[in-house]
């Protein structure tokens, strides 16, 4: 949630008269929803409903071990979707993000396993590969002027070939167990104590940001969100995180004596959290982020305002492909190997779906990095829950496709609604 106030005069007057600011805020929020600005509501509601349905239908869904799996399974898609948000905000698309992650994962695996590089070198080169790919795609879109759909569709095909070539026509390169850092990304867990410390730090930091910004705004006599809302937000975050921490800190190993203890929050969770915070800051609180929104909203207006539109476009593709590389590294860790299918099949559609389900518009100009995480969670829950229900693969595909279509319809309809007024 941004701290930007959207208080209308009615609400402001009520607040000034010392009347119930909380009610005014909620009324204002309702007004916003009716105006077509649904925000995170569909994704959160969908997530809750899906979780309840699966938990009732399959008790094994709500077990600690499956909840931990949800995080690790969803991570690669979430990370790729975070990068895609930047491209989608411009009203562009990157269809090659999936195979970009595959290429970068292959580079990582070759350097680690075949060449025996240290993890940091391999990770650096892998991400640099993603950056280079983003530069190329961005250049072709922004400078040459080819529609991004075509550029990235071509890249989608070409990178599929590149992965095959890198992996010598389809062999599978495993990440050896001695690569502890890479393996740890998706297969290690924080100690319970560290997990609680993490939850504490996140909640305190969130509260501090909210309160400081509220005080700053009231100090300048600007309208700000009522204290009750800020309290609800902080408490809500604390409760949700605590519940997850409590569940994940339970013993998940069937027989700790033999298989070893298995408990704690997956390492990937704080990594996702850091990426989420960093990219949200970039998008919401920097000049660059503001310009991304402006170019997505009205390219001509952005150009007249002196914004270097081409540079913004290229940067968005660079961020997208670089994040795809990070997603590829996480996928490699998850599978402990890289094969020609890494980043292939449905990864891209899941990532685009994640962003759109989360509330990022395909028309550009509207979206948040948080959308990628929320939508990624929805996708992961559908995927995981349907697997547990024992549905065939085809049902999974059809359902996920339908959810993506549903989210895109909501996007299109809410856009029409807000343009009518």
């Amino acid at each position, binding site marked *: 949630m941004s701290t930007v106030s959207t208080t209308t005069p009615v609400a402001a007057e009520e607040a000034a008269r010392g009347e119930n600011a909380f009610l005014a805020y909620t009324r204002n929020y309702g007004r916003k929803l009716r105006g077509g600005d649904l925000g995170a509501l569909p994704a959160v509601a969908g997530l809750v409903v899906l979780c309840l349905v699966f938990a009732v239908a399959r008790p094994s869904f709500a077990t600690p071990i499956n909840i931990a799996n949800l995080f690790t399974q969803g991570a690669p898609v979430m990370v790729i979707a975070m990068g895609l948000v930047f491209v989608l905000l411009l009203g562009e698309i990157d269809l090659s993000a999936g195979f970009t992650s595959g290429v970068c994962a292959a580079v990582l695996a070759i350097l680690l396993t075949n060449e025996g590089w240290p993890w940091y070198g391999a990770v650096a080169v892998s991400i640099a590969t993603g950056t280079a790919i983003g530069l190329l795609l961005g250049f072709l879109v922004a400078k040459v002027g080819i529609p991004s759909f075509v550029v990235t569709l071509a890249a989608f095909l070409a990178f599929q070939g590149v992965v095959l070539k890198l992996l010598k026509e389809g062999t599978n390169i495993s990440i050896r167990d001695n690569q502890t850092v890479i393996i740890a990304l998706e297969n290690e867990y924080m100690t319970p104590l560290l997990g609680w410390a993490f939850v504490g730090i996140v909640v305190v930091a969130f509260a501090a940001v909210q309160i400081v910004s509220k005080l700053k705004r009231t100090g300048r006599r*600007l309208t700000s969100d009522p204290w009750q809302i800020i309290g609800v937000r902080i408490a809500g975050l604390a409760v949700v995180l605590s519940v997850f921490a409590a569940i994940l800190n339970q013993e998940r190993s069937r027989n700790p004596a033999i298989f070893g203890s298995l408990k704690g929050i997956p390492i990937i969770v704080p990594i996702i959290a850091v990426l989420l915070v960093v990219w949200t800051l970039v998008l919401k609180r920097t*000049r660059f982020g*503001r310009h991304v*929104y*402006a170019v997505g909203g*009205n390219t*001509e207006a952005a150009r007249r*305002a*002196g914004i270097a539109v081409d540079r913004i476009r290229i940067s968005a593709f660079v961020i997208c492909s670089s994040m795809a590389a990070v997603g590829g590294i996480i996928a490699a860790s998850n599978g402990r190997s890289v094969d020609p299918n890494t980043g292939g099949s449905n990864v891209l559609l899941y990532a685009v779906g994640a962003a759109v389900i989360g509330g990022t518009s395909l028309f550009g100009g509207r979206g948040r990095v948080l959308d990628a995480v929320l939508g990624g969670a929805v996708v992961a829950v559908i995927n995981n829950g349907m697997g547990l229900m024992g549905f065939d693969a085809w049902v999974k595909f059809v359902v996920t496709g339908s959810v993506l279509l549903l989210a895109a319809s909501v996007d299109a309809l809410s856009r029409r609604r807000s343009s009518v007024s």
Partner: protein
Amino acid sequence: MTSETPAPPLLELRGVNKSFGPVHVLRDVDFTVRAGEVTALVGDNGAGKSTLVKCISGIYTTDTGEFYMDGERAHIHGPRDAAHHGIEIVYQDLALCDNLDIVQNMFLGRERKSGLILDEPSMEQLAAKTLAGLSVRTVSSVRQLVSSLSGGQRQTVAIAKAVLWNSRLVILDEPTAALGVAQTAQVLELVRRLADNGLAVVLISHNMNEVFAVSDRIATLYLGRMAAQVKTTDVTHAQVVELITAGRTGTLGLQPEEAL
């Protein structure tokens, strides 16, 4: 509104020529804009109004001709030079981003920062102050998205955006073309207020009622020439229409041999 002893012109153009290939769009145009006045720029389609405005704002470079700001020679080679001289344009098609709020739009491209982070409170404060300074009461919250505003409110925001930058000359390209009656009145009131606040305003318009309602002077372009630049109080509707359509009216305007 017009004073008998006019202030020295804020902007003066002398002998401006501009061609696009073989097409001679502006011919020896002289144009004067004074602070505290609304100068209406009128002319038929293709008379060169937009080209002239784009030359002033630095989007086009002139072939020949001289610019003077406050009587001193000025060189405008690009939009940045124009902005540096305090020249701001409000475009006909409103250069606003629907997905951003009023503050974000007003500061677009010139955001204030503290460190790496945007300084939202100070931008919001200044935006609110600017709107209040223009006595804008139609906009309820500066954190409203522009998509939720009416046409008149949008135009208001676009004008406020131009005023925000300590601008001295605001050029409005048909600001009321797409507006209803009430909204047009609002915007014209705002235009008048800009001039009363001491700014120089150039208003491009096709609507004679509008021109006579708010302008202090009328400059008429006819086929790329400045037919006449006169005080609004000195001419009638019919005379201006004649200037626009024929380039002259009685002794005013281009001489017959010139006009051809």
